[in-house]
């Protein structure tokens, strides 16, 4: 009997052991369906639309909101796909790239409210957008923020928009990104003095020369009633506040480095619903608190300006602030020294101006600007150098038959061969959209018709663009020769992008992304093409990518 009881105990012990062995389970990620992250589509030039996906130089980043991770799709070789998962933090508020598309920035709010010290704090993470994705920086923040501004030159990030029971909209966090690998980001917290205004927009200037001081970059904070100007070389210094006339709201700020011996660095401020333009001159310091001073000069342009830009009317000089006044079908050229505005009649009510001088290889020293707008079928090249005295002869207008809504620059970071081309995207009429490829050097425009309203995405290589809709077809357009190729996938497309493979820039893969309905949730799939010579008959299809990388 004793032997029997011993056996019973042994079997019971074994059963308990076996049951405990079965309690291990599996990765909790398997229990969470995939649904894509969405954002408000505010920028019509953003090919991501309302989807939290970003095309980078060596990868495509797709947010996996349920798992608080980003899936970085890279390509080991042409048409091959690899998925790397990287944590992004809880409650992603912003998902952006650098202007060069070599970095991905993710702002997360963490656990809110944060009752325990172990709860994840708000964070700003920076990821390498190349073919070997990794986290470069992780900056822990004190409070959750909602908004992230990216410096076009890639040096700074601006975090703002805290959301709490009590929050100060004038509280800004300036993040200076490390210049090299391993160089950490530095954080500067700024609380702007305010007379009641909240930040509306931000402008990072280029390096502006300052009399008696080293050139420096500025951050211009456009607020409801004034401007706050921060010196980015001394971010801890107090800001300079510039009141705007009649408490007008600023609409846009443009800047120019000035011209030696003629005029100092300048800021031009467009005001909302105001015919005046505020011209701010950067002068030498007048107090020990700041390295420079700002002197405003209000100039009436005779109508509501739609766009401002600085232009030069002669080589090494003749700087003017150009203001387009569509109601008068004219432009005003404001001499910053005297404040005198000269009117230049235009062929049409252009609403936008883009200085294209630097994009044309043969420079005469005079500026050339492209005029366009959504209210006219005409575009014009405005040669500023011969404006004075003979303003009509300075403008060459072309009726291209479409109203231009967007002008896209060809990326020239990797290859500047086609920097003299612009993509003019028409405003859509019904289901059709027309776009033009503009050759600035030869002043030729090439119309391209598309059957559907397509989204354009320029390759980071600067060699081609992709046009896609939400159907199964998309197009590659190379710039030399200017040759569109129609391509097809077997599933509906939400995004197309090409990027360098892990073997280098010479090999590229193009990824057509699919978000497919799947048992009440979604699934990620991709069709991979040769990024340089895509062919519908030579693709590779990858499905269920949301499962990749889960361990």
């Amino acid at each position, binding site marked *: 009997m004793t032997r029997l009881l011993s056996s019973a105990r042994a079997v019971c012990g074994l059963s308990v052991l076996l*049951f405990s062995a079965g309690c291990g389970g599996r990765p909790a990620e398997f229990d969470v369906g995939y649904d894509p992250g969405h954002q408000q589509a505010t920028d019509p030039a953003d090919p991501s639309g309302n989807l939290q996906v970003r095309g980078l130089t060596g990868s495509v980043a797709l947010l996996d909101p349920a798992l608080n991770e980003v899936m970085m799709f890279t390509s080991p070789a042409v048409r091959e796909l690899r998925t790397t998962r990287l944590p992004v933090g809880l409650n992603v508020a912003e998902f952006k790239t650098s202007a060069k598309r070599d970095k991905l920035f993710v702002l997360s709010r963490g656990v809110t409210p944060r009752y325990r010290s172990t709860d994840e704090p708000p964070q700003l993470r920076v990821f390498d957008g190349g073919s070997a994705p990794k986290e470069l920086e992780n900056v822990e923040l004190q409070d959750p923020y909602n908004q992230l501004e990216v410096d076009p030159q890639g040096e700074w990030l601006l975090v703002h928009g805290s959301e709490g029971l009590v929050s100060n909209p004038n509280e800004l966090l300036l993040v200076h990104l490390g210049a090299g690998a391993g160089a950490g980001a530095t954080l500067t917290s700024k609380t702007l003095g305010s007379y009641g205004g909240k930040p509306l927009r931000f402008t990072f200037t280029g390096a502006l020369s300052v009399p008696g001081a080293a050139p420096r970059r500025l951050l211009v904070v456009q607020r409801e009633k004034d401007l706050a100007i921060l010196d980015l070389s001394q971010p801890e210094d107090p800001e300079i506040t510039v009141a705007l006339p009649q408490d007008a709201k600023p609409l846009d700020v443009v800047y120019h480095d000035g011209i030696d011996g003629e005029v100092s660095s300048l800021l031009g401020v467009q005001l909302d619903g105001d015919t005046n333009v505020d011209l701010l001159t950067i002068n030498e310091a007048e107090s020990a608190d700041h390295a420079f001073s700002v002197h405003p000069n209000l100039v009436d342009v005779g109508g509501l300006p739609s766009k401002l830009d600085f232009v030069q009317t002669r080589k090494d000089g003749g700087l003017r602030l150009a203001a387009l006044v569509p109601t008068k079908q004219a432009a005003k050229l404001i001499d910053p020294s005297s404040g005198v505005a000269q009117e230049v009649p235009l062929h049409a009510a252009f609403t936008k101006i883009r200085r294209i001088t630097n994009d044309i290889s043969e420079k005469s020293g005079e500026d050339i600007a492209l005029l366009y707008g959504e209210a006219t079928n005409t575009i014009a090249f405005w040669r500023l150098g011969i404006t004075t005295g003979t303003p009509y002869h300075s403008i060459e207008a072309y009726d291209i038959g479409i109203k231009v809504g967007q002008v896209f620059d060809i990326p020239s970071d990797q290859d500047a061969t086609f920097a003299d081309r612009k993509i003019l995207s028409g405003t859509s009429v019904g289901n059709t959209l027309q776009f033009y490829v503009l050759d600035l050097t030869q002043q030729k425009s090439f119309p391209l018709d598309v059957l559907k309203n397509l989204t354009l995405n320029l390759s980071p290589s600067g060699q081609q663009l992709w046009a896609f809709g939400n159907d199964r077809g998309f197009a590659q357009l190379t710039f030399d020769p200017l040759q569109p190729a129609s391509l097809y996938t077997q599933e509906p497309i939400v995004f197309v992008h090409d990027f360098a493979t892990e073997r280098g820039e010479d090999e590229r893969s193009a990824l057509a992304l699919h978000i497919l309905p799947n048992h009440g949730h979604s699934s990620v*799939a991709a069709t991979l093409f040769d990024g340089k010579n895509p062919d519908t008959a030579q693709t590779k299809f990858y499905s269920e990518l949301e499962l990749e990388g889960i361990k």
Partner: protein
Amino acid sequence: MTRKHWSRLLGGVACALAPLLVAGHATAAEADVAPAGPSTEGGLGNHQRNVRVEIGARTQFIKGSGFDPFSTDDVLPQLSLGASFAFWSQNELSLAAVAGFDYGTSSASLRSDKASLDVRRFSLAPEARYHVLRILALTAKVGPTLTREAADVSGPLGSPMLKTGWKFGFDATVGAALELWGYANSNSHKPRLWLMGEGGYGWTSAMKLAFKPEDAGSVPQRLSPLDLGDLSVSGPLFRVTAGLSFW
């Protein structure tokens, strides 16, 4: 009720009965007294040498990550069928040939997908039995298995993704067999009712889970196989069966 439900039910019953197996023995042994006829002299007779058919549940605990897509709890419940022939005996020791068949399925959500696994295992093994009592024998068994594994993942494409394979392996178990009902007379030819329980380890060679569509014509061309790693249906197992013996 589908096969899946039956196997789950049996798996649950097996798990629930496991701790009670031996605890319940005393009652069962006493129950045997009532219908038992007069005892016989000399030897265990067909308490020991018999043909036995069994049905029950096998539960296997699979920790390998390859099983994760198909189960939320690492448990594979199976319907277990078996037949044995005790062909040799000496004193309390006997030897039987055992043939078995286990069938089980497991399914789970795999993020947005649905994944399921169908396992059919055939086994053949010698089993050593040692009667510590007339109605209680301890058992030990090691033998090869041949398992058919069929995995499928139902995703967003027009066709389920499948992977099937036959894999060799082995089961090694020890346990006990309790005669719940039967005449004490070792020469009685009446059937005897048995309750068996055993535990051990089952190992099956790994199958690479590289899925391909069931209907290649309804999915995109040049589909890259869905790769979920390697599946090895291996781990500790527990089996509880009820059987009838004859001779």
